[in-house]
């Protein structure tokens, strides 16, 4: 593999996906501090919101330390070069949240649906495009469908106005060949000027390898997270990804050492516990469950005395999708009743 001269956009997740391991408690000051460090390192795009996207503040997913608007305004104000993106899951957030984010100065909107449900994203993608924003269709849990089924959903999002489509490995389940097959078909079937991206989780330690497979198959946007701060075992570690890409000749515009400083000196200190490939994270990746279920399963373990990895396995068995956090407590209660 040689990526000599390829321009790759690296997109940082630690202030959005990283909200999951932080139970959405990153403070505005911490966000501003980290965004400043990422900006100084030349990270072109930084995602900021509740972990479950705009409007995610809820009993079900957790109330954040500050509102999406407070985070976005503060971070947009702080950065000089980086653009700020926001995630929106139709069914959780609405076009009202999207307008608010645009008013805050967000330049990229990523509209996320489960990989079979793209047609709930029309109104949000339409609006984002009408507002002139960089508009991304984000197909989650993409391991659950074939590449052909994924492409059909991607074509819908493209038809609504998305200029970039993501293959999102929300469970960290994919292996490089899974990524290659999906990205190659997306590149083949989407318009030539539609960008393709990949979002990985490190639950099987495949974040960097899978991202490389994605780039080799034609993707040019890659998500990662400084210090890996993200759900499950975290996202693709951004500083490693940037270093690997530089050695392979790709152009990212990132200063590796400054990014390593941001990860080490700004992101690592805010972690409640190290984001690592724990037994629970391994189960997420091995069985294919949504990464942000992890802490919910841990809390259910503490409350009901049922092993968290067993709960996560059951969530995978029931073919749950992102957003079904409310089922975790119910499953834990059922399992506890069975063992009694």
């Amino acid at each position, binding site marked *: 593999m040689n990526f000599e001269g390829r321009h790759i956009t690296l997109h940082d997740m630690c202030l959005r996906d990283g909200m999951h391991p932080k139970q959405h408690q990153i403070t505005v000051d911490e966000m501003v501090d980290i965004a400043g460090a990422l900006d100084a390192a030349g990270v072109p795009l930084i995602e900021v919101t509740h972990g479950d996207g705009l409007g995610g503040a*809820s009993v079900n997913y957790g109330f954040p330390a500050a509102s999406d608007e407070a985070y976005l305004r503060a971070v947009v104000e702080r950065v000089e070069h980086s653009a700020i993106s926001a995630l929106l899951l*139709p*069914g959780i957030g609405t076009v009202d949240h999207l307008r608010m984010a645009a008013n805050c100065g967000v330049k990229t909107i990523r509209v996320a649906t489960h990989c079979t449900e793209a*047609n*709930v994203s029309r109104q949000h993608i339409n609006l984002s495009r009408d507002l002139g924003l960089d508009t991304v269709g984000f197909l989650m849990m993409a391991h659950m469908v074939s590449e052909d089924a994924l492409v059909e959903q991607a074509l819908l999002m493209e038809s609504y106005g998305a200029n970039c489509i993501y293959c999102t490995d929300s469970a960290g389940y994919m292996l490089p060949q899974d990524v290659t097959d999906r990205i190659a078909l997306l590149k083949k079937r989407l318009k030539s000027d539609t960008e393709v991206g990949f979002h990985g989780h490190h639950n099987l330690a495949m974040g960097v390898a899978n991202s490389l497979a994605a780039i080799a198959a034609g993707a040019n946007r890659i998500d990662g997270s400084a210090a890996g701060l993200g759900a499950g075992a975290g996202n693709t570690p951004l500083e490693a990804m940037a270093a690997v890409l530089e050695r392979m000749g790709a152009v990212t515009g990132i200063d590796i050492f400054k990014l390593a400083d941001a990860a080490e000196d700004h992101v690592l200190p805010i972690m409640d516990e190290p984001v690592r490939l724990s037994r629970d994270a391994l189960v997420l990746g091995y069985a294919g469950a949504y990464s942000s279920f992890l802490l919910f399963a841990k809390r259910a373990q503490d409350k009901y005395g049922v092993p968290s990895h067993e709960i996560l396995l059951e969530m995978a068995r029931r*073919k*749950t999708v*992102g957003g*079904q956090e*409310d089922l975790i407590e119910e499953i834990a209660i059922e399992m506890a009743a069975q063992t009694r």
Partner: protein
Amino acid sequence: MTTKAKAAIIGPGNIGTDLLMKCQRSDFIEATWMVGIEDSAGIQRARTLGLQTTTEGVDGLVAGFSADPVDFVFDATSAYVHAENSRKVTALGATMIDLTPAAIGPFCIPPVNLQELLDRGPTQNVNMVTCGGQATIPMVAAVSRVQSVRYAEIVATVASKSVGMGTRDNIDEFTRTTSSAIEKIGGADEGKAIIVINPAEPPLVMRDTIHCLTKEVPNETDIRASIAAMVTEVQRYVPGYRLKNAPIIDGHRVTISVEVEGLGDFLPKYAGNLDIMTAAGLRTAEMMAQRRQSSRSSL
């Protein structure tokens, strides 16, 4: 001695056809019109069952109304076209039962506020909120009638196959309309609604989680009794409405989960989210018809 009230159904799709099948069992409502915009399977089915049909949309109903009038019109189309349908139908003097999330008329969740709506006198248009609202707002109300609810949030998880294009094209309507009804009818100071769509096969039965944050420490005994009573009320028109947990009480949080299995009239049983809409719509028309009849006979 009773003559059934007559009803038209606009929208011969899955919802309209399921509603038609429920009407056929009703002691109070007889569906006499099916209104569509093309000669679809739903129109053909209604014709076979002996209903008047039109493929000219609401205008076809308006044109045939004087020859074949109705008391109620169920609108099972979409929020986008509901306003026009409602205007034309109410001008004829029929009561509109709105199954779209358009929310022109007052919200109606039968076990919570239908009695109050009836007491208020004749209504031109009532809105059945959303499927998630019908399934969850009775539970919010069951808590809020015991003690103050500062915030209520519902999460509706539904099978992908049970979510039609009307909902998909405008999923924000679901979120907004449900949130608003959680406050206005559920009695929470603040409401939030979330919908999760799951494509698993076989399709999952509709499942709802209702989180209520109470102002004072929850009175567990009273809340449980109130929930149990409300579940019984909903079961009068949706027998497959089931409480799934105790509920969970954790600090000021009361979390209730329910499962909604449909009757399987025309819609599959897993689509309890659609069944509860058609059942609630019919129940509303039935109660209105009964009230009209009793007020006539008492004259």
